[in-house]
């Protein structure tokens, strides 16, 4: 049911890793049958704790990792059918990473990355053309060529360098931007300017943005739709206003309760449950959240919950067993509107 506006579509994508030696091997399903899509001009959030599989998913979309099963379709083309390197992914999909100081080699002037990208994608015939192209990309993020000419990464502040990194990814006019925790290393005080930039890029350039984060507050601020992942599964997905403001899944309630309130009068009075080890939860049968869920029952520990549709959002939880089971595509269609 791919809409004409759909840029990226994932269907039943799984990734299994094997841990341990030959005789004591454990199989960990890092990503378990995940399906979602990202439209043009849309910011789609993918949120969850560290170790929930969100970065593995990003690596698969970028083509660094092969999915064990399932398909990833970008603009109607399936990367699996292309032999060798996945050219379409690097051409139309660009990434912005967590720490801008690790993105760039500290011993190279940052402009070299720009000229290299222009060369690799054959974007210009002359140096003058290349310069104007680079300048244009930098202006989109509020900088210009003169501010980066001849400078090394250490000469920039974190926020500025993250902007430079975004400008670099815009050089070849991608249709999809994968932003993997783009602000978690950036100071809280300048986070919002980067978030505003993402909003602007989606609105003005019609860019699809997959915003991967653990910070629900910023996700709420920029995203249109959001999927919450827990130990490889998408536990709930839908409109950001619905998923985060009226949470249905107990895990979202836990996540929300963990965001520090900005009002010193509303401090935490209760304690949150933490997982001791990641693998333990991955190997759990039934609902993977059952070990920490305040409302877990016997069924949760034994059976894996079905995905059901409530109120236009997808929820994977036994609490809503009696709600209508997910009809193929109905949620998807509704979410397109």
């Amino acid at each position, binding site marked *: 049911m791919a809409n004409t506006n759909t840029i990226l579509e994932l269907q039943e994508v799984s990734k299994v890793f094997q841990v341990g030696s030959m005789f004591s091997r454990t199989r960990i399903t890092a990503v378990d049958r995940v399906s979602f899509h990202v439209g043009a001009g849309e910011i789609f959030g993918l949120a969850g704790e*560290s*170790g929930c599989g969100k970065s593995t998913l990003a690596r698969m979309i970028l083509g660094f990792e092969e999915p064990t099963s399932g398909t990833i379709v970008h603009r109607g083309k399936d990367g699996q059918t292309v032999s060798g390197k996945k050219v379409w992914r690097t051409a139309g999909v660009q990434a912005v990473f967590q720490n801008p100081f690790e993105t760039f080699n500290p011993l190279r002037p940052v402009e070299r990355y720009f000229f290299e990208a222009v060369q690799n994608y054959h974007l210009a015939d002359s140096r003058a053309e290349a310069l104007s192209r680079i300048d244009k990309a930098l202006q989109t993020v509020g900088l210009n060529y003169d501010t980066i000419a001849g400078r090394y990464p250490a000469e920039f502040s974190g926020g500025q360098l993250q902007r430079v990194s975004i400008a670099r990814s815009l050089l070849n006019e991608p249709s999809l931007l994968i932003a993997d925790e783009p602000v978690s290393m950036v100071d809280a005080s300048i986070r*919002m300017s980067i978030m505003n930039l993402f909003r602007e890029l989606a609105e003005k350039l019609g860019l699809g943005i997959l915003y991967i984060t653990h910070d629900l507050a910023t996700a709420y*601020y920029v995203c249109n739709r959001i999927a919450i992942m827990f130990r490889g599964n998408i536990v709930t997905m839908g409109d950001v206003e619905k998923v985060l403001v009226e949470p249905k899944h107990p895990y979202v309630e*836990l996540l929300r309760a963990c*965001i520090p309130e900005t009002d*010193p009068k509303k401090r935490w009075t209760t304690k*949150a449950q933490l997982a001791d080890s990641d693998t333990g939860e991955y190997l759990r049968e039934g609902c993977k959240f059952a070990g920490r869920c305040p409302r877990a029952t016997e069924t949760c520990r034994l059976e894996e919950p079905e995905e059901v549709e409530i109120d236009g959002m997808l929820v994977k939880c036994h609490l809503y067993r009696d709600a209508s089971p997910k009809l193929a595509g109905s949620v998807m269609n509704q979410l397109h509107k």
Partner: protein
Amino acid sequence: MWVMKVEQLRAFYVLDIFGVKKIVQAVSDVDLEVRENEVYGIAGESGCGKTTLVRAMFGDIQPPMRLMGGKVSYRVDGQEIDLYALKPHERRALRWSFISYVPQSSMSNLNPVVKLKGTFRDFLESHVPRNGKQDVLESAKRHLIGLGLPANVLEAYPHQLSGGMRQRVVIALASFLSPRVVIADEPVTALDVVVQRGVLQLLQDVQELQQNTLVIVTHDMGVLASIADRVGIMYAGKIVEEAPVEAIFGQPLHPYTRYLINSLPKFGDKQMRESAPGAPPSLTDPPHGCAFHPRCRFAMEVCSQAAPDCLSVGDEHRVACWLVQNGEHKHDS
């Protein structure tokens, strides 16, 4: 009553790059009092001198960092001690027993080839008189259980634990000898929200249990709102505002503090939020006058000419801003 006092502290980095001298004024003229049994938060952008300040408070001064002036005093068992008048071995004796320090990303610095009990034993044997291996392990176990951590982490290698658990073990280690002051430098940066909450909870539990002082350094005002009692805002090597946490969030007076608070996203409010414009100033050549004036939208002529003093504006609230001193400041603008 104060337990640690900083007076007119100046700590600079003196760099010599190919014959060119560069001086980074990381901490200049900071006055600070940290009291007994409180959580004191220091907030500011990266590169504003927060880490340098706490390292100077801990007495860890190594080149190229240099102490250019000022005084750091501790109150140990009712006696005032000037930290930098002590001999190195006396200073070392105070560490961990009186003051302990959890540096940035310390969770990644545990020895990867030694089980955690080895780390605990190493640490304890150098600080408490020998009383047998087994005793040390037993007390380590009791301490961990007392803090609500599983005792079997002692048998684990660092890589077997999640980042949040490692950070909590490091905090347990730092609080083992019940120091009167614990300094935690960015203890939750880059941890995800659930783990962040767990670590903050532990810090709070330790503080309540041992009735000591916690100094927490962070750039995230949200963290301070949830655990600090008093907050100092640092900008370009100086404390620009200091107040109890309710006052900082209720009536922030310095324009920079207001930017820090207003830039926090909130649920149920998708309105455009603005960050402070521009970039943090360079500390090798800080702007003349008030260091914030190039980014301040209320900047006046006097701001670029002279730096304002940090003056008290009532109830434990002090602020360094010309707007406030000229009486032009309005609440809730």
